[in-house]
């Protein structure tokens, strides 16, 4: 058993959400996840799931495609449109190609058929959790950049926008009608505030910022 994986999973307490209308399947999958060391939460329908806040927790979704009421694909579509990037593993007894294509294009981690091999499912779950973890880390970083950006003065943001475009200090000073020294001063301040040491880091941070924020800064 690869310990690092387990420790990683335990450390982050990833949660595997299982949605299947068949109770025996639901229980069996949960048992398998438990035996692999994941925490599970079970739902008999997507509607029941959406009524809770489990989706905000880190982890992944194991979804049965065919269910009474709203299907797995419907839930996927719902999550995508609402901006929730929860990784989804589809599980079906009788999948076909168009269904698979639709699910994968919509960003599913995997599309598996029942009965499924344990390792295949666990790999998929691990991959999904890894994806989720990475996405969450990225989101946290962007969040910190945004927070730092909030501390900048409008002039500093202006200069930051110009700098990330590759403009020279003297060009910026000319454009803004200020002295080059002042530009350098601002530049130093903003780099400190943004907690970057190199221009490259600054540019990456800039690029990581949401477009909306970049535009307001440029303006």
């Amino acid at each position: 058993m690869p310990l690092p994986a387990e420790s990683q999973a335990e450390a982050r307490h990833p949660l595997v959400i299982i949605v299947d209308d068949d109770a025996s399947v639901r229980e069996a999958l949960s048992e398998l996840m438990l035996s692999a060391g994941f925490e599970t939460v079970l739902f008999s329908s997507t509607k029941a799931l959406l009524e809770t806040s489990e989706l905000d927790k880190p982890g992944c979704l194991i979804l049965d495609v065919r269910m009474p009421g709203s299907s797995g694909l419907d839930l996927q579509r719902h999550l995508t449109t609402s901006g929730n990037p929860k990784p989804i593993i589809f599980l079906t007894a009788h999948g076909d190609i168009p269904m698979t294509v639709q699910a994968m294009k919509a960003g599913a981690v995997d599309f598996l058929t029942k009965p499924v091999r344990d390792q295949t499912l666990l790999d998929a779950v691990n991959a999904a959790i890894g994806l989720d973890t990475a996405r969450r880390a990225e989101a946290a970083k962007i969040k910190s950049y945004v927070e730092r950006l909030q501390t900048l003065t409008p002039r500093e943001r202006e200069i930051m926008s110009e700098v990330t475009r590759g403009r020279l200090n003297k060009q910026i000073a000319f454009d803004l009608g200020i002295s080059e020294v002042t530009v350098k001063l601002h530049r130093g301040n903003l780099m400190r505030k943004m907690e970057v040491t190199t221009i490259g880091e600054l540019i990456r941070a800039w690029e990581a910022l949401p477009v909306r924020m970049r535009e307001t800064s440029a303006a």
Partner: protein
Amino acid sequence: MIAALHRTPPALMLVTLAIGLAACWSAGSPFGILAPIGALFLYARGYWLLSLWGGLLIALAGTVLAAMLYPGTIRDEALSLGALVAVAGCIGLLLVPDPLRRGSRLAALHRRAARQPDGLGGYADRALDGAVHPDDRPAIAQAAAYAFWTGVPQVTSYRQREPDGSYRWTELRAEPGYGVSVDVDAMVSRPCDRWTVAESLGATVAAVKAAKVIESLHGKAWAFDAMGKFTYVTPAAQVAIDMALEDLNRRLGDREFIDGGEAGWMRGVHPDDVDKAASTLRHCLKTGEPWNIEYRMLRATGHYVWHRISARPTRDDEGRITGWFGTSIDIDVYKKTEAALRAREQHLEQLIDTVPAMIWSMTEKGHPAYLNKRIMEVTGATRETIMAPDGSLSLKKMIHPNFLDLAEQTFAKSVATGAPYNIKYLQRRADGAYRWTETRAEALRDETGKIVRWYGVSVDIHDLIVTQTELHLRKQELTRLVDLVPSHIWRLTPAGEPNFFNRRFIDFLGLDESDLETSRTERYAAALNAAIHPDDAVRLWAELKHCLLTGLPFSMRYRLRRHDGVYRWMDGRAEPLRDEDGSIIQWHGLSHDIDDQLRGEEALRESERSLRQLVETLPALIYCAAPNGEPIYRSEKLREFLGFGLGDKDEDGRTRLAGTLEAIIHPDDLPDVKEKYGLSLATGSPYAMKHRLRRADGVFRWVETRTAAMRNGEGEIVQWNGISFEIEDQVRAQEALTLTQERLARAAQAASLAELSASIAHEVNQPLAAVVANSHACQRWLTLDPPNLERAQKTVERIIRDANSAAAVVGRVRALFRQTVEARSLCRLDAILHEARDLMLEEASRRRIRIEIDIEAGLPPLALDRIQIQQVLVNLIRNGLEAMEPTQHRALHIRCARTGDLLRTEVRDTGVGIDVPDKVFEPFFSTKSNGMGMGLAISRTIIESHGGRLWAENNQPSGATFVFTLPVETKADHDR
């Protein structure tokens, strides 16, 4: 000869005159004129004769005067003419020889004058005739005239000449007044008659003296003594009665007259009067009372003559009766006159009584004086009953109380003023009934103008009054009828002038009846002129004029203004009334107010028009048919659609219905339409059918026709009303829809099989997936270090559970295909066949395929799963229909018959047939491009589960037959 000339007729005289004139003229001599003058003399009488003489004298005098005044030839001429005139005068003298002729007129007058006192009757004539002695004539004439003029009867004596020439004394009694003339017997005084004088007068000297005095005054007298013995009797009287004194005093019995005996004079008294005369005389003789008596006395002639006898006693100084003297007056004429008068009065009374009228009279004060017999008979009244106690008239019992006051007032007024009166009233009759009576009364006045009497006559006018009343009532009724009849009745003169309007008409026009200035005709004409609507006036007057001229009945509708100014439509009619010779007397007309009716008709017409418009413009094909189905109406749209009208398809020998149907209904639909329509016509049930209808351009269009019967109050069908909707588009859409549905169903069928398998897979897969997952989990729990046996144990339990679950799913799937016997019940196969046929009819008709069913009668019911067998049949029918898709001859035959203890059902098509009859029943075998190949397999399973067999055969020359058999005694426990 002259006498002969006198007798010549005037014509001859005229001829003479003419010849004379002609001679006078031809001879040129005036002497010719003598002949006519002579002729004139022959004939002239009286005035004319005098004129002739006068003319001649004047002419003579003229000529003489002319001869004296003028000299020469004129004198000669005048002399000549004078001579002529003189000659003419001589001729005249010769021709008129009889002087009496000249005085004939005077003589006639004289004769008439002599006859004038007609009242003298024949006496004067007799006097003139010479029957009376010439010496007596003046006296008689005078007496007759006196009697006539004064009215006082005259008695006179004269000598009448007997036929032998001798004269005989006769007494004439000339009576005036009533024309009563009594020929009394003559008292003949004859010289030889015997009369005597008493020898001694005795104590009766005074009486005789008195008698003689009377005799000198009166002519007749007598005296007798106290004992009744005559001592003196006027000789004339003795002669008249032919009794001498001796005869008179002769004692005829042994007793003296005074003692009750009989004296001779009594023989001269009429036997009826003698006793009374004798007894009264005896009484007077004894008492000395004056004797006054009338009795009939026998005359010498043998006749009894009435006499009034009076006698008075003479008394001596001591008052003793010394004698009696008396006289007798001949009152025979009075008695007879009185009798005649009485008879006459009686006659009159009878006349009055028999006249059919009630005649009465009253005194000048109005007291009832006389009632004729009739009035008493009829009214039961007598003079007493209608007389009030004070003698005045009391009408209470004679007159109806209603008229009493009027009658009394009228009567009193007339009595007071003397004016005649006339009154009509109800008179009470003897039997208590009242009858109409008319009474007229006039006063009789004397010469001073004073009312002497009222004479009245009452006439029964009851019948007249009743008739009049009835007539009046009838007239009133007629008038009321004419006035109340709810029409305007009018009358025109032949010239067209209105002279009568009835009350309603007058009220309608609002005529002012009180206007009496102008005549009725003018008022009516003016009102009529004003009332006629200006738009109708010209037309109306022209028509009326035409009718008046030709005598044709008048009939017209026009508007007439009512008094309130509203014009109302009138239907006026008039016809002439003609007399016997055919000429028009007047026009009688009637105008009826038809305004409401017209408005009603107008509204009705309007409503009908709008309804018709509605029917015509409705986007539907509407028609009506007679109860036998014959078309009687088609709406505009339907006529347009068909391109022909009602009668255009009429042909000989065929009904319009048959002709029309064949012309417009699609041949494939015709039998059904005819059958269904015929059924509806026969039963009266509504008809509804979808069929193709031939449009005018020859294209058949789908229509839905619905027809229902319109019934009258008795429930009889009076008409069929039908409507056809064009449902071509709808049918097309329906067909497309059906096709789509069919494809969809087929797809669904296919899908459901896939679904079924998917579902089966899902059902089986779920537990399997659970089993697999649990197995992995179990393995992991066991491979843990240390192994988590508790969890492993739990997962194994789950594995067992899920595996069992999977097995149960498989069992359920198997059960799905297993037939359940519980669904079976006893059914009639023919009913199921019809149901299946009906289910497929729509599709068959869409595919233009007819399904014919031939089922043997009396098939036994079978224990079947109705739905499954129906599905088998539907499957076989659909297969058959689909198999015939590419072929021309299209008919599907279904036969069902019993062979032994099996019911054999065949579904035979004329399609393409089957290549391998046995393979078609294998699952997933299909000859059809879109078939799943499961239908026949399942069908065979179903039939076999019912204990039957299903197989297929190929027909010759084409098509296939699917046959299945079912055992009659299908056991319900076959599958258990």
